[in-house]
């Protein structure tokens, strides 16, 4: 059966002599892995359309539940080639590709996440173009909004996929608190920690959160991305949030898929 959809290339894996296995993020099929015949040949009709981050309209042929469907066509809708132009940018974007690959499953359609991904790429590209035009090229990375956009993606992605950490208040009683317990994926207030034995099983790894980071996180959780890009968080704030999110993500990934709740 020939199927058409849209997709963004997350990753490719060389296969055999000149073939590729291409993993797409799609709105209709979640993570979609396809087999592409001979794209690594210089004159391949796939051209550059299978490079990471390329947003394309694709067709693939496969029987339902059969192994890898075969990619028959990919027409570029937007290449995002600028995001592959610089190592520092691309390596930063790899963080959101990795997060997505770790959580999204095949046949697990999630339009919200697809749109978030696409929107994030668009905004990073807009920002990159603006900065490239207005400032010294070498400094682009440091003054860009990419750090903010990557954090924004991570927070909203975790929210849409049901893995958001609870940071605004105690996860057990709702009181205020600022100690984040990694194994609980949540802030716990002092009295809940005292009377609870849950921590013993999961270890006591804890991070103390600053008030600004809690506020920042709440903004990312609730505000639309277009509004987010108007704020200018400090490098320290971005780093503090990145650190909490990365530890939280690492903890969830370390658990087997089925027990991730």
């Amino acid at each position, binding site marked *: 059966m020939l199927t058409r959809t849209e997709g963004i290339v997350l990753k490719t894996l060389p296969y055999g002599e000149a073939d590729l296995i291409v993993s797409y993020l799609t709105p209709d099929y979640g993570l979609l892995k396809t087999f592409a015949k001979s794209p690594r040949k210089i004159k391949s009709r796939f051209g550059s359309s299978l490079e990471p981050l390329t947003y394309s309209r694709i067709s693939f042929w496969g029987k339902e539940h059969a192994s890898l469907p075969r990619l028959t066509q990919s027409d*570029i809708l937007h*290449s995002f080639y600028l995001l592959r132009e610089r190592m520092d940018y691309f390596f930063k974007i790899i963080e959101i590709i990795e997060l997505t690959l770790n959580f999204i499953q095949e046949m697990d359609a999630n339009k919200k996440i697809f749109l978030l991904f696409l929107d994030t790429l668009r905004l990073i590209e807009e920002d990159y173009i603006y900065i490239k035009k207005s400032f010294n090229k070498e400094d682009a990375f440091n003054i860009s909004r990419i750090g903010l956009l990557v954090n924004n993606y991570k927070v909203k992605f975790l929210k849409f996929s049901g893995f958001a950490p609870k940071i605004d208040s105690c996860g057990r009683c709702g009181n205020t608190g600022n100690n984040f317990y990694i194994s609980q994926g949540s802030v716990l207030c002092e009295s809940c920690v005292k009377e609870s034995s849950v921590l013993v099983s999961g270890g006591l790894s804890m991070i103390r959160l600053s008030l600004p980071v809690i506020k920042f996180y709440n903004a990312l959780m609730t505000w639309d991305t277009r509004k987010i890009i108007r704020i200018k968080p400090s490098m320290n704030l971005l780093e503090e949030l990145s650190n909490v999110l990365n530890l939280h993500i690492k903890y969830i990934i370390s658990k087997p898929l089925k027990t991730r709740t």
Partner: protein
Amino acid sequence: MEQGIIENLIKELSKLPGIGRKTAQRLAFFILSMPSEEAKSIANAILEVKEKARFCKNCFNITDEEICSICRNNSRDSSKVCVVEEPSNIIVIERSGVFNGLYHVLLGALSPIDGITPDRLKINELIERVRSDSVQEIIIATNPNTKGEMTAQYIREVLKPYNIKVTRIAYGLPIGGDIEFADEVTLGKALEGRREI
């Protein structure tokens, strides 16, 4: 039982790239009809490659000696080093006949997502060569894709302190094609890399 051994040979041959079941079958029956000596020399050539092939200590090309024949060749220009991803790339560039310098094989390309970090490639060995040999130009001929491009940028960064010329092979359109069929990225890069004639 006779069917068993020929079936086995077909199965083994079809493991080779580009060899489907039909071709494997044809090859198997051809081998069967060959003089024993010829068949043996094919088998021996395969065994020899597996037993003797190793990486050149200098450039990581495939060789059966400590230093490969390209590195040993005095008539080659040792001031230019062409950096490639795989040993097989050397054969292709050699066939073009336009390069007379030396090579350096990275044995892969950067891909953090797959755990291929700089320390997994022969990049430190390249820096070492730049330091100790009389290299004046590094030509980066990694693949024209994202992994190859990131690898090229990374190498350019780490070689900055050494003040040598670092060049990248040009992005262009494949010869013999029609511009109409080129995608926008390939065409854009070809335009960027245009030259005066």
